[in-house]
């Protein structure tokens, strides 16, 4: 049943092809801009703290395009509209779990974006500037695991903010808040290894780092193998904590909908 929701979300996106084109160009420009910055930074320098320009180009492709292809704003707006218009009642009428439904639908979104946006952007940038292969087959395989975890954590973070908006009545400012936090702490713009030590010490334990930084770092082989397992475990822990939080928030929100009528 939930697989059908994912397939349908995918199909729905096909109906809006222009949207796919605009996000394709948007992503392309973003990645180009990041690479231009790193090229300026690395002018005349072979490596900074053992990180080469080639590393940073690959980092820009992965952290910006691959991890940035799903946007929390999509989910938060869906949720905001459903609650404000009362359409959420339609989902309560059906024998299904609404947050799981949203997760399935957004998996479909993610699959579509990956095929229609990430793949072409990666190809174009890869051909233009070159992309590094994963540090090893093992690193490549772990990257796939981290990538799935990245989406799960990002989805849960967006869901948490979206449900909090239900009480705070400020979906818009929460959306901006999450955008800001993600830009800084996820490592999508600046990898954690360039953070000032004090900030990095905090950021490395926050769930945001699992969204962009850790998957990319694993791919590039910048983590110790022993460390990788521990980081994966902490990430899974965060996912579990966030999932429990979302479950709790949703049951409170549902209770309020059924008692107060929205």
């Amino acid at each position, binding site marked *: *049943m939930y697989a059908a929701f994912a397939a*349908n979300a995918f*199909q729905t996106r096909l109906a809006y092809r222009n949207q796919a084109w605009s996000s394709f160009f948007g992503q392309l420009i973003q990645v180009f801009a990041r690479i231009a910055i790193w090229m300026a930074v690395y002018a005349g320098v072979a490596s900074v703290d053992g990180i080469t320009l080639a590393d940073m180009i690959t980092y820009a492709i992965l952290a910006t395009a691959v991890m940035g292809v799903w946007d929390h704003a999509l989910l938060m707006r869906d949720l905001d509209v459903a609650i404000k218009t009362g359409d959420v*009642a339609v989902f*309560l*009428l059906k024998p299904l779990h609404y947050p799981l439904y949203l997760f399935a639908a957004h998996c479909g979104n993610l699959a579509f974006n990956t095929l229609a946006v990430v793949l072409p952007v990666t190809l174009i940038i890869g051909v233009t500037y070159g992309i590094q292969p994963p540090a090893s087959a093992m690193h490549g395989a772990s990257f796939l695991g981290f990538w799935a975890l990245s989406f799960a954590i990002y989805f849960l973070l967006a869901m948490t903010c979206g449900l909090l908006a239900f009480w705070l009545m400020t979906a818009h400012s929460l959306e901006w808040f999450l955008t800001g936090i993600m830009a800084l702490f996820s490592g999508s713009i600046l990898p954690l290894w360039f953070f000032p030590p004090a900030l990095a010490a905090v950021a490395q334990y926050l769930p945001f780092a699992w969204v962009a930084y850790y998957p990319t770092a694993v791919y590039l082989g910048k983590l110790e193998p022993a460390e990788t397992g521990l980081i994966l475990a902490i990430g899974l822990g965060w996912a579990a904590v966030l999932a429990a939080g979302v479950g709790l928030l949703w049951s409170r929100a549902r209770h309020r909908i*059924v008692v107060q*009528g929205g």
Partner: protein
Amino acid sequence: MSEIIVADGVTKRFRQPKRYSGLAGAIKGLISREFTEVRAVEDISFTIRAGEAVGYLGPNGAGKSTMIKMMTGILVPTGGALSVLGRTPHEERMVNAREIGVVFGQRSQLWWDLPVHDSFELHRRIYDVPEARYRENLAHLTRMLGMESYLDRAVRQLSLGQRMRAEMAMALLHDPRILFLDEPTIGLDVVAKDAVRKFLTEVNRERGVTIILTTHDLQDIEEICPRLIMVDDGKLLFDGELKRLRTALGARRRLKLDFATDPGPVSLTSARLVSDEGASKHFLIENEETSLVDVLAELGGGHGLKDVSLEEPDIEEVIRTFYQQRPALVPQ
């Protein structure tokens, strides 16, 4: 026939934060903890047996939708007991959902961007309808509702009438035992309204699906539902057959006579004069048996009568009449 819905003193009150007007009021609203209590449903009791078709009638804001939402399990009653198919709806929402079908006239349950057929297919998966049963139902409903021509069109491209038919078909795909409809004919043109009414009558008579329908259109009730539950202001006003209500009330029709020139005072025994504007005079016909022919025969010729119009009482008129005569009529 078994009783499948039992409402016993069901009450629903909403608490709304008090709002104040103006800018100063908005600021006051931020710190104020005062609430106004809205009584949407007030101590309502009734029972509905399997296979019945019941019209739940009342003006806007009478608490009709609130009652439907409680019966479908998406609102929790503040007081009283409610049982649908032997369960408390909000406590067993998922199980309840599988055995009921719900249609909201003002809210679509179809997937907006998908072809109708894909929405149906999703519905099949959500409700685990066996493939063979699904095909049979789909073919039958498509034929009954004449949906062949637009099954593969996206929902957003449908007319309201087509969409309503698709909504009703979807709500019936999983063979629900009860079908709830919240204002299914709202906004539809005469032809589409007629199609919806014919279809619902057939579903009730032939498939034996219990139908509970809210409306403020008396015509819906007359054609679909032998039984009528009338509410206003959250309270139960009447529960019984429509015919009984009409006879009990002697529902008054309005008669308007237009003359070429003012014929002077006209008095009739079959109709009571309510306002006299000279050339046009308004009457109320209080006796159900009186026909237009009777009135015209009594009036006779020679008055220079130009035009006659007779209006059936609309629902507001019925309810107004009902209020006036209430003490004599309250059941029990």
